């Protein structure tokens, strides 16, 4: 393929998916679940903002796509959680200062404690000063510079298993898109399907909301019909008109894989050794307000090797290693792109989606890795960073394919979210979805009086929260199963209580207000988005029968 100075030979598209379940607990001052949010802000969201703002400051051309789910956006924008986050940082600063003094006899540990203290102080200054407690606004301000923000479903509902109640699927999509518009002030071009869960037919619902593209796992495209001509190195259009980009296995593996990926390097920080578990309880207890051992963010050891023996973390050595890995990643992508380009008549795009929280939280050096990758890309012109939206704007013509049902994760289909530990939820979620659909049909034709409307809107929020894929995931992984079960049941109980009150006309205004206050995400939700979808027919009906088998193998199979 010819290359000109104006036209890169290929594209690299990095996509980050930022999500946490809605874990705002108004009633309890200290809840362990909120630590998930605190850690993610300190470890991932603020460092990513620093990295991206560094690119802007240094004139590094960058392109990065990122989804921010509505539950996460709601928590980031919540004043109560912002206040609690600052208190969390203050406890972390105090603990790290105490650790500096207590470890004066061990310069290596004292040095790390000082590093964490500086890090927590910087986080506090960034959060309250630079970004004015407004992480979403900081992200929004980066969009003119190269950040492409994607929408996602209302509460990260796992859409393939909601399929029998199509109004619920559509409502998850519509509420997610509307929330994105409200938060970021723009119509989203892309939509992150929770768990990369693609179900044929849902593409039509996305197009209906003005979405142009989504991301699928590798086999979403590779098992599509007809066979995708360029494998996953070009997007395809579904018959409904949605562009689907497929995940590149090679680049994903280099970052994700526990055995082959960069994050497992022995010089990187060990995630699972935290001072919250290592220190004597009396020392750490004042800084753990929940009264149980948990992570403090002070992690003093490096991965070292496969065994339990861990050596002290060396930040300078890790910084050198991450620069090496970033250069290696770009080197590999360039060679991968050159190989692929030989087999294509157009510039290939390598798309690498990751959980955002991998960078910084699980992989401490991850933000520095991203920084290094983008800066290395800017030093050459052969492989150019892009976003799916930019790529579609430049290349509008693509193959039409029936994309296969698929997810990312274990075995690539729905088994994580549908197995013995969690399959009981679908009877209840489907029934509640149908009930919500009936309520919308009954009360949606006319504008109900304000209290009824509020009760119906809150019922929609409770149903959305019950549908979060996180609960089924937790039940499967067996970690905090009781919490996940309780969240599912509590939201469904709240839903049915509101539904009954609306039907009988006996609505308790105080109860509605209390739930609005407690579960306050999706403030603009409208229950009528659950209106029965009469006449709706998914468009990804199979093309299989209409295409003649070809005798020759495709370029992708050779």
């Amino acid at each position: 393929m010819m290359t000109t100075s104006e036209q890169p030979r290929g594209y690299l598209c990095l996509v980050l998916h930022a999500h946490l379940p809605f874990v705002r607990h108004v009633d309890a001052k200290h809840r362990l679940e909120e630590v998930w949010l605190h850690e993610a802000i300190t470890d991932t969201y603020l460092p990513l903002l620093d990295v991206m703002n560094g690119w802007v400051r240094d004139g590094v051309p960058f392109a990065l796509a990122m989804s921010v789910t509505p539950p996460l956006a709601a928590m980031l924008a919540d004043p109560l959680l912002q206040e609690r986050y600052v208190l969390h940082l203050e406890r972390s600063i105090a603990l790290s200062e105490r650790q500096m003094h207590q470890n004066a006899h061990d310069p290596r540990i004292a040095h790390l404690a000082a590093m964490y203290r500086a890090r927590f102080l910087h986080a506090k200054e960034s959060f309250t000063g630079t970004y004015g407690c407004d992480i979403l606004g900081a992200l929004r301000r980066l969009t003119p510079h190269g950040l492409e923000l994607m929408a996602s479903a209302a509460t990260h509902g796992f859409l393939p298993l909601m399929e029998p109640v199509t109004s619920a699927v559509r409502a998850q999509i519509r509420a997610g898109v509307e929330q994105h518009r409200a938060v970021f002030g723009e119509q989203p071009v892309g939509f992150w399907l929770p768990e990369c869960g693609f179900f044929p037919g849902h593409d039509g619902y996305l197009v209906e909301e003005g979405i142009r593209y989504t991301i699928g796992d590798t086999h979403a495209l590779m098992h599509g019909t007809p066979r995708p001509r360029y494998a996953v190195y070009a997007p395809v259009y579904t018959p409904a008109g949605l562009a689907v980009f497929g995940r590149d296995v090679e680049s994903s593996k280099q970052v994700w894989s526990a055995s082959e990926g960069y994050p497992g390097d022995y010089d990187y920080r060990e995630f699972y050794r935290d001072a919250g578990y290592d220190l004597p309880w009396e020392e750490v207890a004042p800084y753990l307000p929940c009264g149980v051992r948990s992570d403090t963010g002070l992690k003093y050891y490096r991965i070292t090797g496969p065994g339990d023996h861990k050596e002290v973390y060396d930040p300078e050595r890790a910084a050198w290693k991450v620069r090496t890995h970033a250069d290696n990643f770009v080197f590999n992508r360039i060679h991968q792109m050159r190989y692929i380009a030989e087999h294509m008549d157009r510039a290939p795009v390598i798309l690498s989606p990751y959980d955002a929280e991998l960078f910084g939280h699980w992989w401490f050096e991850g933000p520095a890795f991203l920084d290094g990758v983008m800066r290395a890309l800017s030093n050459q012109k052969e492989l150019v960073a892009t976003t799916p939206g930019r790529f579609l704007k430049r290349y509008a013509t693509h193959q039409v394919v029936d994309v296969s049902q698929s997810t990312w994760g274990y075995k690539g289909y729905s088994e994580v979210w549908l197995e013995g530990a969690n399959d009981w939820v679908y009877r209840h979620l489907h029934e509640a979805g149908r009930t919500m659909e009936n309520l919308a049909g009954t009360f949606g034709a006319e504008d109900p009086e304000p209290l009824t409307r509020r009760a119906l809107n809150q019922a929609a929020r409770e149903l959305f929260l019950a549908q979060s894929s996180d609960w089924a995931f937790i039940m499967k992984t067996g970690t905090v199963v009781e919490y996940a079960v309780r969240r599912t049941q509590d939201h469904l109980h709240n839903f049915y209580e509101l539904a009954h009150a609306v039907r009988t006309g006996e609505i308790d205004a105080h109860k509605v207000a209390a739930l609005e206050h407690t579960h306050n995400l999706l403030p603009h939700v409208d229950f009528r988005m659950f209106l029965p979808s009469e006449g709706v027919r998914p468009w990804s009906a199979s093309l299989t029968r209409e295409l003649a088998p070809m005798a020759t193998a495709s370029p992708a199979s050779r």
Partner: protein
Amino acid sequence: MNDSNQPQQLSDAADTGRFLQVPDVPQPKPLPDAYGVDRLTLLVRDPHCIFAFWETFETECTLEICRTDESGALLEILGSHPVPSVGSFYAWVPVAGAHYGARLLRRGASALWSRSVFTPTGRPSDLEDPRWMSIRALSEWDTVVPATGTSPGLAARSVTRWSEVNAGNSFSLQQPRRDLFNKELPTA
């Protein structure tokens, strides 16, 4: 087959650690076992596994897992199982990329049918379409001559689709929404 298993190992391990143990979790209120409806639901789990759950008023039933055509018409009964009035069942199905259904046979009542579902093929397609159209071309197919620049099968599908669009029967690309196709993406 996808390679997502291996890359996901770290993610799964990491996510497992994300959710900390929470003390003194109160006992959740139980949900009802059934909702007093007559319903049989079928979900697709993977190319070779479907999941049925049901509730019915009859106490003694037989669940049949069936191969069907796209319209849901019975082609073959794959298995028959005595089941209670409320329950669930995982069925392993022999052929990927096929339509399946389920029905509950009930004494003294008509059979209760599920909808028909389609399992993923789980493998690359044998079919190729060496030419394809752009999405802009798709959007203009009601004004330009159809059946150009694509395979006959795809053309037939699109012609049918766009005639439905024009008749107002299609949900996804109704006339007001079609501007989306031609709208320029935001300049990066």
